[in-house]
């Protein structure tokens, strides 16, 4: 009698085998406390040594926005510069950081935790999800800081702000998918992690965080059409519309449908893509 026959008889399972998708996801769900705790503790660990501590989560994007706002505010002339420029930049940078964090840090979610992956058996998807949760907490904190800034520049809270809630849900779904996709890609192509900050920067400059695509690309209707189908552009445009409606930022209603679809597809692709390599992580 061979051992694998014995395994059949005695109901033994192959160790290290990737579980089927739904039991895998159930196991990830069972580990949700680990995901959120790891995310919260990492945030604390990052900032606790500083005097201002957790405040840095809000200060960093604020300083970023100030620096970019100053430089791009000077470069752009009155004609192309969006109205109400400081608010334009702050909303843009704050919303952008969530995606950027998931994109760049998601890439390190598995590779930077090699030790943990190689010594503990747990569903690896918890690692990119912890990165995503960490970025989401940061983003929520910056959203709170955004309120007094908006008021300072004369945008008072209105019912319209509530639209940010569904937008946030869709955006977070999209970013979860992005994090998982990046987390697996860098496991196969380690070199990519070196390039990602540059790719992220190109995306940053191209996504209309600092300038209005509509007025800069006035002579190129095709490019504007293409932007109409670009999820990050849609997120920024919708966020600006809801929070600062007078900034001349109406958007096409098809954005809702398009963005939701893009988010769900990205999430499903991300889950399947990450899960299918479950046995591969930590082996190099």
């Amino acid at each position: 009698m061979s051992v694998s026959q014995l395994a059949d008889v005695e109901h033994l399972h192959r160790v290290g085998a990737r579980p089927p998708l739904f039991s895998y996801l159930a196991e990830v769900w069972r580990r949700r406390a680990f995901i959120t705790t790891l995310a919260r503790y990492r945030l604390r660990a990052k900032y606790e040594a500083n005097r201002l501590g957790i405040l840095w989560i809000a200060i960093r994007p604020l300083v970023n926005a100030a620096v970019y706002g100053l430089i791009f505010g000077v470069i752009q002339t009155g004609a192309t510069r969006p109205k109400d420029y400081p608010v334009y930049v702050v909303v843009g940078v704050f919303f952008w950081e969530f995606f950027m964090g998931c994109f760049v840090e998601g890439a390190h979610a598995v590779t930077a935790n090699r030790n943990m992956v190689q010594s503990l058996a747990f569903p690896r998807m918890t690692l990119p999800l912890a990165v995503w949760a960490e970025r989401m907490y940061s983003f929520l904190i910056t959203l709170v800081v955004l309120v007094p800034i908006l008021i300072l520049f004369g945008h008072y809270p209105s019912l319209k702000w509530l639209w940010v809630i569904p937008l946030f849900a869709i955006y977070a779904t999209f970013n979860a998918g992005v994090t998982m996709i990046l987390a697996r890609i860098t496991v196969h192509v380690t070199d990519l992690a070196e390039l990602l900050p540059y790719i992220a920067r190109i995306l940053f400059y191209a996504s209309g965080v600092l300038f209005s695509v509509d007025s800069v690309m006035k002579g190129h209707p095709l490019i504007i059409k293409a932007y109409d189908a670009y999820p990050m552009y849609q997120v920024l445009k919708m966020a600006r519309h809801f929070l600062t409606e007078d900034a001349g930022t109406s958007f096409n209603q098809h954005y809702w449908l398009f963005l939701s679809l893009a988010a769900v597809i990205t999430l499903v692709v991300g889950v399947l893509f990450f899960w299918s390599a479950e046995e591969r992580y930590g082996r190099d």
Partner: protein
Amino acid sequence: MVAIEEYQRTGELGEPVVSVENLHVTYRVYATGKAAGSQRNGLLRVSRGIREVHALRGVSFVAHRNESIGIIGPNGSGKSTLMRALVGLTPPSAGAVYARSRPNMLGVAAAALLPELSGERNIVLGGLAMGFTPSEVREMRDDIVAFAELEESIDLPMRTYSSGMAARLKFAIAAARADDILIIDEALSVGDKRFQERSEERIREIASHAGTIFLVSHAMKSIRETCARTIWINQGVVEMDGPTDEVVDTYEASKK
């Protein structure tokens, strides 16, 4: 598969819980530097030297419920590779490991800890990483603190601990679990002489609660004390598998 049939005939053992069939493990290592005799070199050489290390070459055995199995062998014989394959962390290049429930290694939660955080928070993090629920972690908390003897400094960041304190905390977190199939590396016992004795004692206590244990050790004394059966691994193959006294005697004789 003589060994299995033999164990099945004896009939005294519990049902099989782990079964290892013809397990081969090969590591592919990107060799840096030059092996002796290599001719080519240069930074931009695209095909870097990939060396294959055949760490296990066809290991087979079956472990039964309530067995304590010692794993011995010289450094580099493949003991650790075998243990990592048992818990599913190292993929077999051929053969497979089957188990009733997932075997777990004692003492590896340290990888999940964050030195910036207090011992208190690291207990929570380590416990969750090992798969405990938050309420189980809350229950374990006091025992862990007491065992690690860190009541005074449990709220300080772990990076401020002395290496002995950190090692005690890591051990106490790791030793909080009781598994069905448990793998214990005795290099784990840490700290000063007194704590080493306490941790060895704790390991034995855990071993007595676990269903089936594998004890990896260089200390023949603890193998003889804890294990009824011993497997001697040498250069990636099972050199000998049988009652501890027989195997350990032969092993010790071979080293003289």
